[in-house]
């Protein structure tokens, strides 16, 4: 396993020789990684039924790697939960299943389609229709069904302003609601995960990472990520200065012409609300370099945030991650 933190280590040596290889080398901790591992161990120790919310995106994939590191050589002591909107990129789903298989993880999938069929939520219509907000209901139902008391998510404080004040352990009530005025202060690295019956906690182990931190980590660790993160040919159309996937899930006017372009995605959420960027970057190195040069924030490529500046904050209040 590659880890650039180990200086001068011979990467090709078989594992049984690693001891020898390391004798003269010192491991320099990456402070953000160490903090995340610390948080994940606190979750496992303080809660009875934690779950890792897995979207198939780079942030949740990073969380899986961090969890592996936190508990190695034991297996990750909590399952993964994927709230499937039904509008995921097929590449993401294939990747998810392969990851789970390779690491021997437990995966739970709950579908937004089921919540729609049960009449709990109504599908949005029109130009900006998306299932992103509908996920909340499916998630809250899953929390209830499995009695999860801690949901680990890959949100980062640098994503946007409303997140900048998010706690690492964020207490939610029965309705998943977030009360920004009534959060527990978090002092030093002490985490207070005590909750009442019916409450649960959203945990954000990579709160302090930036988008670039995540990409550099993926590169250094050689973590596998879904292919749509790399430049590929795709049928797209342009709207509001952004690049959208052209397929049956995404609303499109007759006037919006479909063309083929080299694109990649910076986030891999729901197809309906995830825009692509024109790019030729087809390796991790090239992607990281592009992110470093980039002057557009990751969320700038998310249509649901454009709808309203306060969109995220509102979603959080009703129980979205």
């Amino acid at each position, binding site marked *: 396993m590659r880890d650039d933190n180990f200086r001068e280590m011979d990467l090709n040596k078989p594992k049984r020789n690693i001891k020898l290889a*390391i004798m003269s080398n010192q491991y320099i901790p*990456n402070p953000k990684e160490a903090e995340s591992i610390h948080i994940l161990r606190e979750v496992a120790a303080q809660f009875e039924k934690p779950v890792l919310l897995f979207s198939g995106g780079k942030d949740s994939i990073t969380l899986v790697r961090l969890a592996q590191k936190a508990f190695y050589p034991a297996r990750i002591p909590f399952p993964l939960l994927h709230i499937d909107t039904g509008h995921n990129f097929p590449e993401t789903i294939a990747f998810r299943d392969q990851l789970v298989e390779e690491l021997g993880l437990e995966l739970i999938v709950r579908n937004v389609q089921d919540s729609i069929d049960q009449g709990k939520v109504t599908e949005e219509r029109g130009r900006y229709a998306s299932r992103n907000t509908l996920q909340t209901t499916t998630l809250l139902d899953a929390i209830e069904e499995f009695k999860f008391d801690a949901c680990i998510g890959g949100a980062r404080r640098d994503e946007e302003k409303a997140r900048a*004040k998010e706690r690492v352990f964020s207490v939610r009530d029965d309705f998943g609601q977030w009360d920004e005025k009534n959060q527990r*202060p978090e*002092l030093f690295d002490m985490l207070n995960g005590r909750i009442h019956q019916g409450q649960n906690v959203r945990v954000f182990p990579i709160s302090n990472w*930036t988008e670039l931190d995540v990409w550099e980590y993926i590169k250094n660790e050689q973590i596998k990520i879904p292919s749509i993160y790399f430049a590929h040919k795709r049928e797209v159309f342009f709207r509001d200065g952004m690049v959208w996937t052209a397929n049956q899930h995404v609303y499109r006017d007759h006037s919006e012409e479909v063309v083929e372009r080299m694109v990649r995605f910076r986030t891999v959420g729901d197809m309906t609300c995830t825009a692509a960027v024109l790019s030729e970057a087809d390796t991790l190195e090239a992607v990281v370099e592009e992110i470093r040069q980039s002057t*557009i*924030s990751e969320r700038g490529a998310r249509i649901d945030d454009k709808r309203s*500046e306060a969109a995220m904050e509102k979603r959080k209040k009703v129980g979205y991650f």
Partner: protein
Amino acid sequence: MTENRKLIKIATAGSVDDGKSTLIGRLLYDTGSLTTDKLEAIERNSKQKGYDYLDFSLATDGLVAEREQGITIDVAHIYFNTDKTNFIVADTPGHVEYTRNMVTGASTSQVAIILIDARKGVIEQTYRHFFISNLLRLSHVVVAVNKMDLVDYDEEVYLKIRSDFEALVEKSDFSADQITFIPISALKGENVSQKSEMMSWYVGNTLLDHLEVLEPSDLQESSTARFPVQFVIRPKTEAYHDFRGFAGKVYGGNLKKGDLITVLPSFTESKIKSIHFFENEIEEAIAGSAVTITLENEVNVSRGDMIVRSSELPKSEKSIIATICQVNNKPLRVGDKYTLQHGVNSVLAKVDQIQAKIHTDFSGEEAVDQLRLNDIGKVTFKLSKPIHFDPYLQNKSTGSFILIDEGSFDTVSVGFID
């Protein structure tokens, strides 16, 4: 290489309107951390408000509720980086709940930037900001004398503020070399990342250059290693049938394979057999690493225990004296019982005595019968079991704790052990 960028954690402090948001926005802008869409939003908003300059404070002002009230109500975290350094800024708002917020922000920071409005000079709030930096023993304080443009970049104004502040430093535990003064204009970008031509009389570094060269320490000079056990790892797989690893983070100093250790609270002695980080075995875990260690003999270790070198035992006491900062609306009174969380360990604690409330303006103390939100005081506690600690001055991690209310489960106080 970028992957080993230095990490510097900063708490910002200033009264309302001293220009904190503007300064942070300016730092983001100057380091190229403001994305096009954010920059456009700032331009749009600035124009809407009829400004003829860019209002960078818009880059950070967060929640809707706050924007409506026009104030920031909670600690916000902001990130930027240069080629060499990653920065995390804990931005703490300067209004009534100030003490709680700044203590919280400072607890995860190494450096404080204290803003002073050049027109107002050192005011009572400045005392408080510096008091908290001192209480938390931050490793460096940067005094940014802001809005120099409004005082004609006058050196005299700066020197007066500087000497007023130096009088405060005398009363603190800081040495002069931990304090740096920089005259700036956050709005105009003078001495933030670019050397000011308007203030050629100033010979020091710009703010950003200064932050980059800092080598902050976290009070680890004593180099006594502390390893609180977070989690016991028992894979129970064929390959690791007998593996019993103790997972945790190393604080204060390094731990080496072969070190003779003592497990607290049982005082059992053993030896470090191996140290693991993921798939690798390492010889030495330096402070700050999150590792897993195994011991030579079968020692009973569980979460909340602490592994230390046998030659460096910490203090073990059933009653402690600590400086407390109250971070919750519920006041602290004599006789109150709380859960005391000390790192990853918890015991019950009873407030035995409130010795005094300490004034945060360096003016002394007074006798009180309770400590309210934002109060700082000296308190003695009786504990259900001994805790194993170091004075806060020697080790921030083993020298601090939080109190958790048994009813609400809220974190009500933070303590720094004497």
